[in-house]
């Protein structure tokens, strides 16, 4: 049996002894970043609350270095584990500095008076999240995003070995999202702190996580490496997406492709197609994309947005068959857009296709300046 640093062993979680998610079996090594993903209300918070002992387990155990956390004193656990929650904190006349300083709680004496070292750690923690300038401000008077950073500083200030975060990126703008994840990454990799969090942004989850847990209603549908989990089908299935799609290569979400019979043909390649595809998608115009090498960046997006793709194997000459397909497509369409694909040795035939479109009076040049 593997010895995990942190182990959820046949854990069943829920409220008031009513099981919600059953038989969770997850082993975590020290310094790993584990991300819980899943739709709203699937139970990500419930799992986090259960392993932080905020909720009692319905069944099973959670062990930290082979000690059952249920049997540890709250004080001992607080030196090992810090949390950052989504619930709103109501404070009166407390500065951000004082909020962060509560992280020193497990280390201060009977009356909780900060020593000089404690004060230094509070300050370092504020610096760590780039929030020194917030220190003197009233916690109620700052923005949600700033509050989020202060609460992270508070958790850091507790100097934990393991940190639990419930949707730490909500309310943050993109800069601070990236900053927060960078902080977590460096804590995990430099200080060997284990991070367990829930995230809504699956694109970021894919990029930061060592392991991913898919929480779907009453069970863990998947657990493992992000490379295995972030596939088109898994994500579509996890979130029951039926009006859009997930791109595992870029980790991006695409809106549903335009419906209907395509009347537009786009000659694209080398990324020139992306802005054209997006524009057509926004206009809700169905289109055919071609002739795309299947390793082309345009190809990846076209799989989500184009009604049809005329494709070619990578690094080969454009075949006569594809050219015929393209011409047939042009015949069916009322207009042809030249996205401005560069023409080299392998795709000389594009000239012929463009000329064919021109001859039929269907060619539109995409004005690249407007894009």
């Amino acid at each position, binding site marked *: 049996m593997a010895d995990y640093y942190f182990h959820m062993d046949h854990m069943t979680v829920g409220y008031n002894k009513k099981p919600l998610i059953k038989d969770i079996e997850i082993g975590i090594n020290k310094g790993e970043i584990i991300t819980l993903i899943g739709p709203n209300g699937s139970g990500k918070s419930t799992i986090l609350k259960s392993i932080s002992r905020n909720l009692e387990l319905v069944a099973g155990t959670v062990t930290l270095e082979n000690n059952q956390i249920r049997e540890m004193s709250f004080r001992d656990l607080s030196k090992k584990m810090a949390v950052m929650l989504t619930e709103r904190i109501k*404070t009166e006349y407390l500065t951000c500095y004082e909020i962060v300083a509560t992280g020193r*709680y497990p280390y201060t004496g009977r*009356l909780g*008076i900060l020593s000089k070292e404690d004060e*230094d750690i509070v300050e370092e923690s504020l610096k760590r999240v780039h929030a020194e*300038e917030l220190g*003197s401000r009233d916690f109620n008077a700052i923005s949600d995003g700033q509050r989020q950073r202060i609460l992270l500083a508070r958790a850091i200030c507790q100097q934990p070995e393991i940190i639990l975060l419930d949707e730490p990126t909500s309310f943050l703008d993109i800069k601070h999202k990236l900053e927060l994840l960078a902080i977590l990454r460096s804590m995990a990799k430099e200080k060997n702190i284990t991070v367990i969090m829930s995230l809504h942004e699956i694109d970021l989850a894919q990029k930061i996580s060592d392991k991913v847990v898919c929480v779907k209603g009453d069970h863990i549908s998947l657990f493992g490496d992000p490379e295995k989990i972030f596939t088109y089908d898994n994500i579509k299935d996890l979130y029951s997406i039926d009006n859009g799609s997930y791109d595992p290569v870029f980790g991006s979400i695409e809106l549903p492709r335009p419906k209907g019979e395509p009347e537009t043909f786009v000659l694209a390649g080398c990324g020139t197609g992306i802005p054209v595809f997006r524009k057509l998608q926004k206009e809700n115009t169905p289109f055919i994309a071609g002739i795309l090498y299947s390793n082309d960046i345009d190809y990846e997006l076209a799989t989500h947005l184009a009604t049809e793709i005329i494709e070619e194997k990578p690094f080969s000459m454009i075949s006569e068959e594809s050219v015929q397909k393209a011409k047939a497509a042009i015949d069916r369409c009322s207009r042809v857009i030249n996205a401005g694909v560069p023409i080299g040795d392998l795709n000389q035939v594009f000239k012929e296709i463009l000329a064919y479109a021109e001859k039929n009076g269907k060619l539109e040049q995409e004005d690249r300046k407007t894009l």
Partner: protein
Amino acid sequence: MGKTKGEQPGTGTFRNDNFRRRSRYTAVFIILLAALFVVVILNINTGNVHISVGQILKIIFSGGHGSGAEYNIIWKIRLPRIIMAAVLGGGLSLSGFMLQTFFNNPIAGPFVLGISSGAKMVVALTMIYFLQHFSSVSSFVLIIAAFIGSMIATFFIILISHRVHHMGTLLVGGIMIGYICSAVTDFIVTFAEDSDIVNLRGWSLGSFSGMTWDNVKVGVIMIGVCLVLTFFMSKPISAYQLGEAYAQSMGVNIKVFRVLLILLSSIFSATVTAFAGPISFVGIAVPFLIKRLLNTSKPIVVIPATFLGGAVFCTVCDLIARMAFAPLELNISTVTSIFGAPVVIFMMLQKKRGNN
């Protein structure tokens, strides 16, 4: 709010802030102590019978050995009354502070949540029973009766708070509990024998009059012990201010903590009610004013300051109760309501604005 130039990076950015804050705390404590001192002097010196300051000092330093009308007025009437007004006022304010912490709402207090009225009801019952059967009743019995009453009312309030999470509704529930208990008390008083009523009427409306040195002993010990215990709870209270989940993650045993909080708060309000009857609004107004004055809600400073503030507030109110229409004496709640209720209204208005 950046660093001062030339300062070492990483250290001391907030030292100035911390220093400024601590200076403010010190100033507030000095002001409160000075105010208490002045009010106590005024209180001793004010009354229907005028006694010179020299005479007063002589009586006080005689240590309880003396005779004569002046001695009796100072030593047996005014001094115990002042001490009780101060100590009970402090205890009542802390009771409010604890309830506010517990319910995470600044408008919670023993009076508005019906806890004082619960204590009043059981004390009234006990008084009548004891006066009928034993002709006297010790202050300890009254404190225990008040404690039982407080706990009964608190139990119902906690029950309601589990069902409704909206604070306004909880307060309405508390006020209703208060009305029920007061109605029961009135009912008992109406059917009590004449001699009992005299005792009960004054007490059930709240008053610091008629305190004895025996009362003072019991009151000071009860409130003193609870004050020390409360002060040593300031660390978990500070964690609890961030909410239950955070407090637990910092190592607070929530179940034990919540029980302690309620017990202490109930003992405070029970002791006050047993001696002085229900006193309104002190429990809300004083902690609020103190937090504003200190500009923090950190319990380690707020707890002692609230106690002092409550002492000042109640001795001032008692002075007014005694002197405003002398020789007629007002109920203490009449005076505390006049000063306390507007503070609560102000708080609610301010809260509304803060939310928008």
